[in-house]
């Protein structure tokens, strides 16, 4: 099979760091999700902000999104997803060695969402912590979990991505209010029972791009600037460019590190930021959309929860089978990015 050539890299592009998994193979043993019941459709948004169903669909691919009711906590969404993932992987909560929650919207500065989940599950002892890498958080958390399990420091790790982004949305900004939404997804990582599990990774950040996706004063942040209600802001075209580039470069970098061709990838599960970013990246990578998982139409951009929501839907729809080579890739505020290739168990 012909090796697809990677698109040219701009001379100012950041070098990508890749590495192979080492130690004992680690796999995703089970997935769980939770989305708030309340649904906000594009038609609902038409009544709130200057926009239209057609405009939203054409530019983002989103039809509806789930929004948490007032009083709903991030940890409650996370706990629901966690319970489902534990049940799916037939792991008892007491077996957990570590709980990692990727979130940009914790319920407060502390305690961590991870500790609140642990309290809800009633399993003291495991190490619990939150991790912030914006929308890339889930991939970062997967990589941390995988490192602990592959090295033998842990046998069973619960990874969760959970967000209540709707509280940070500027409902007057038609560029961002139609995109962001609430939800949670969880994965249980354990030593692989068969197959290779996680194979190769690409993780990186570029703090020079700190002002591209922000919440609150871009330079000072929300706290130092004294803002009582910081709101999400995004430089749309710049982010679009960064996102498509980094999706493409990560896909080739991870495939190369794993020693496979792009054509060998059975399913590409990208962070669901915007269907146009996904389609533009898939086109340039040379992956047909039949091998790309898109479910942003139902959930919108739930930041750290999108990849888990997409994996879960892919599994439910029969698009994810044992032995499949899966490419996961994300990007987010920071700027941050992360991707991995795994053999589905």
């Amino acid at each position, binding site marked *: 099979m012909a090796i697809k050539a990677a698109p040219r890299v701009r001379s100012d592009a950041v070098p990508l760091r890749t590495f192979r998994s080492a130690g004992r193979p680690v796999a995703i043993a089970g997935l769980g999700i939770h989305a708030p019941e309340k649904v906000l459709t594009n038609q609902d948004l038409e009544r709130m902000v200057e926009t239209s169903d057609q405009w939203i669909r054409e*530019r983002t691919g989103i039809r509806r999104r789930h929004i948490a009711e007032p009083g709903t906590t991030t940890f409650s969404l996370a706990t629901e997803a966690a319970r489902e993932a534990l049940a799916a992987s037939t792991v008892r909560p007491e077996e957990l060695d570590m709980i990692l929650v990727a979130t940009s919207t914790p319920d407060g500065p502390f305690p961590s969402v991870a500790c609140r989940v642990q309290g809800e599950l009633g399993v003291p002892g495991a190490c619990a912590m939150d991790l912030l890498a914006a929308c890339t958080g889930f991939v970062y958390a997967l990589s941390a979990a995988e490192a602990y399990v592959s090295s033998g420091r842990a046998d069973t790790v619960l990874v969760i991505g959970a967000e209540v982004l709707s509280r940070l949305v500027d409902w007057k900004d038609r560029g961002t209010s139609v995109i962001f939404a609430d939800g949670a997804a969880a994965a249980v990582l354990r030593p692989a029972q068969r197959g290779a599990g996680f194979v190769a990774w690409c993780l990186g950040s570029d703090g020079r791009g700190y002002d591209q996706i922000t919440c609150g004063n871009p330079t000072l942040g929300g706290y130092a600037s004294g803002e009582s209600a910081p709101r999400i802001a995004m430089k749309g*075209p710049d982010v*679009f*460019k960064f996102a*498509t580039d980094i999706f493409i470069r990560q896909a080739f970098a991870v495939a190369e590190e794993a020693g496979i061709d792009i054509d060998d990838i059975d399913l590409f599960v990208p962070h669901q930021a915007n269907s*146009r970013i996904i389609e533009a990246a898939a086109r*340039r990578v040379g992956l047909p959309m039949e091998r790309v998982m898109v479910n942003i139409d139902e959930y919108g951009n739930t930041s750290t929860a999108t990849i888990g929501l997409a994996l879960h839907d892919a599994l439910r729809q029969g698009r994810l089978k044992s032995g499949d080579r899966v490419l996961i890739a994300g990007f987010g505020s920071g700027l941050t990015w992360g991707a991995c290739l795994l053999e589905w168990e």
Partner: protein
Amino acid sequence: MAELDFKELQELAAEILGVEPEQVQMNVSFQRDLAADSLDLVELIAAVEDKYDVELPEEQLEQMKNVGDLWQFLEAREAERTRA
């Protein structure tokens, strides 16, 4: 080096902007005539950079209103390369 073929640029732009290649003419505006939004333009630029092995500086992008502007830029780059 072979000369640039305008037809190829027409086909590339048509594919990305979702229009017919014949609509992509020198005097046509990306935004006004071909209804390209900011994301379309970003995607088109990336595709052009890939295909022609060039880098389009941000400041020059802003000035490229018409298909002809982009074409002239590509021709100028090609001429530089031929001389080099």
